[in-house]
């Protein structure tokens, strides 16, 4: 038993959850928290904006598989976290956010820097707490971490008033079982459900597996590989599923959806069975729901009951952990030869090579060239973090990864400015891994202040800014659907090379394809973080594209190129 105050108890509990690094920004309402932080073996990374801190904690969780922790003060500090919390929520990642709050006797009086954070973040957290009694703090922190990391992971927020932080009690760590009668993160699997799935799979002639984020969250990568290889079923990936199976695996078709490869979407539309694993039929992935995979029976396995039969009505829905389910199915499914179906898909694939810009020489520098070349030179274990927009889609299409947890991207919320801070978080989580951040000029400007965090923390990452002078993805939509009315999309940028240098980092500018290799090698070999600015073709588009309302296989394709 020790005499400790709320702030100390907070760190005692956090340490026992296995946390070794946190991302925090101090303020009036959380000074006691920061004061006592120095008594504990936890590394503090100070961002330049709380949103940056939130994305860092998120990127940390994505790269490490551990729970990320971010700390901010009350009022504006807390509201600055909101975008980061929503990003983690929509992509289902475990991050625990601690916000300072005004003293309990001031709550509700519009005190200085007071905001109802619990109210504001209720819709975007898996759960949240306002601690009113320091005796509840240990239980609350233990519950918060448990909720964040179990079942379908998600962000949890704890609002900690200042008087609770400084109140002292006799404290002892209570590790009795967590009591959450309303929380059932896992359910048992029934035998007849397994038998039905086995039967449907064995009977299918043209099946496709749709593999999403759940495969990674469940650590079911090798289970998926074994299963797919035994039944010889090709696999299409969602954006967040990238990496769950190596890019070069013969059964890996590639990414599906709005900017997925044409052959993948076509295969899905023509399949007779879809096995959806840990994905949620997001509208970016299905195209028009009324015409989605019309001839296919559908099996949907996910840990989140609320996703089953939500967007797409399926023939068999199973709430279960993916790894467990695949291991149960493995001995029961028949080995099959589906070479006719697989060859058919490969034949559709053949024609795409002609249209793919990465295979063409050009005077202009195309993002496809940049990403392909970086991808070839990057370490096989490297982690790539994207921002949002065209840069994100091109990276998904061209930055080929063989390992899981090596592709980090804001999918559900699509938050611009995510790239740089998330890459910082990933580097803190994996200091010995090569980290690449790919961003556009728009998104990069949103959080570029975090370059200074790289400097202060002595972190080395490689940043590629694809600069086309536009908010590229919006401009693309304006070109294709709004008669090229580029309203609000042309944007100027500062001299990114000078910005990098102003932050004490290195900056390089590339304008021609032949210069890419030299710049990348220079970046990799430099001790400090390097920003490479690529001046790319201004009006290049991401192809293929499934326009809103169109069926998944009615894609807009790049006009065929003359070789």
């Amino acid at each position, binding site marked *: 038993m020790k005499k400790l105050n709320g702030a100390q108890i907070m760190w005692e509990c956090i340490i026992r959850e296995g946390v070794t690094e946190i991302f925090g920004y101090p303020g009036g309402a959380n000074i006691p928290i920061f004061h006592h932080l120095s008594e504990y073996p936890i590394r503090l990374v100070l961002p330049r904006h709380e949103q940056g801190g939130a994305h860092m904690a998120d990127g940390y969780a994505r790269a490490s598989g551990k729970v990320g922790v971010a700390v901010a003060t009350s009022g504006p500090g807390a509201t600055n976290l909101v975008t980061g919390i929503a990003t983690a929520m929509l992509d289902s990642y475990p991050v625990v956010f601690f916000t300072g709050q005004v003293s309990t006797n001031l709550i509700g009086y519009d005190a200085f820097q007071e905001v109802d954070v619990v109210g504001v973040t209720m819709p975007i957290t898996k759960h949240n707490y306002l601690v009113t009694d320091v005796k509840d703090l240990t239980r609350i922190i233990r519950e918060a971490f448990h909720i964040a990391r179990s079942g379908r992971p998600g962000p949890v927020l704890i609002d900690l008033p200042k008087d609770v932080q400084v109140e002292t009690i006799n404290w002892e760590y209570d590790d009795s079982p967590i009591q959450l009668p309303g*929380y059932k993160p896992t359910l048992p699997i029934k035998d007849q459900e397994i038998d039905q799935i086995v039967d449907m799979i064995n009977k299918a002639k043209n099946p496709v597996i749709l593999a999403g984020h759940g495969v990674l969250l469940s650590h079911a990568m090798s289970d998926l590989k074994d299963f797919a290889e035994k039944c010889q079923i090709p696999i299409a990936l969602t954006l967040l599923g990238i990496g769950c199976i190596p890019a070069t695996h013969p059964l890996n078709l590639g990414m599906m959806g709005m900017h997925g490869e044409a052959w993948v979407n076509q295969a899905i539309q023509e399949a007779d069975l879809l096995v959806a694993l840990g994905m949620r039929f997001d509208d970016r992935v299905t195209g028009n729901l009324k015409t989605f995979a019309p001839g296919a029976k559908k099996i949907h396995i996910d840990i989140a009951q609320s996703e089953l*039969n939500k967007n797409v009505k399926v023939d068999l829905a199973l709430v279960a952990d993916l790894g467990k389910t695949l291991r149960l199915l493995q001995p029961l499914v028949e080995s099959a030869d589906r070479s006719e179906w697989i060859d058919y898909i490969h034949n559709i694939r053949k024609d795409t090579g002609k249209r793919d810009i990465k295979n063409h020489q050009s005077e202009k520098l195309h993002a496809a060239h940049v990403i392909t070349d970086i991808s070839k030179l990057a370490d096989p274990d490297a982690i790539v973090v994207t921002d949002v927009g065209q840069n994100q889609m091109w990276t998904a299409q061209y930055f080929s990864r063989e390992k899981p947890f090596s592709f980090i991207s804001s999918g559900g919320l699509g938050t611009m400015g995510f790239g740089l801070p998330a890459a910082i978080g990933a580097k803190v989580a994996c200091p010995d891994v090569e980290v690449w951040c790919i961003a556009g000029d728009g998104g990069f400007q949103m959080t570029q202040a975090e370059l200074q965090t790289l400097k202060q923390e002595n972190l080395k990452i490689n940043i590629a800014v694809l600069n086309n002078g536009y908010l590229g993805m919006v401009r693309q939509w304006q070109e294709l659907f709004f008669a090229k009315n580029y309203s609000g999309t042309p944007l100027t940028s500062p001299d990114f090379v000078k910005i990098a240098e102003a932050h004490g980092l290195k900056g390089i500018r590339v304008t021609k394809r032949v210069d890419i290799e030299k710049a990348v090698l220079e970046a990799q070999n430099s001790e400090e973080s390097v920003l490479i600015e690529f001046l790319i073709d201004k009006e290049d588009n991401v192809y293929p594209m499934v326009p809103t309302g169109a069926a998944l296989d009615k894609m807009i394709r790049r006009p065929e190129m003359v070789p």
Partner: protein
Amino acid sequence: MQHTLIALVENKPGVLTRIASLFQRRSFNIDSLTVGRTDNPAISRITIVIDAKNNNAERLTTYLDNLINTVCVEDVTGSAIVSRDLAMVKVNVSPANRSEVIQLVDVFRARIIDVANDSLLIEITGSEEKIEGFIEVLKPFGIIEMVRSGVIAMGRGPDSLGKNTNFMYVNNNGNGIKKKGG
């Protein structure tokens, strides 16, 4: 179509806000919502009537169940349940029509709980249909004021809600005492 959901939730601050907030952001329309304590001080019981298409009601039940503080939820629409609402109606009366109103009170098995010169305050419990019927017949007399508590519902027969749920009885200090079922 109207759906009736019954839920057992932890009796903790803010739980009702969470539920109301859930409805708002998933765009569901609440027709009535009641919450009250149960014999277990750690658990409150909520009865909700919503206006939803079939599939939406199923989704909503899942979302409600997903909330950390919800112990169990059941959509009891169409199953064997008893549902009751309570209304207090203050109606205009004159010496001429007072006895007529009193007769209606008897017919509907309601009770007069306050009497004034020109008004009667009537309390009535019953199914929604009964209450709506009573209000209809009172309208011609002139309704001064009325309030309804909202629907509460319970399944007929010996089973209880959450009977198959294994939950613990937890008091507010977080000290747990194990207790099975409902």
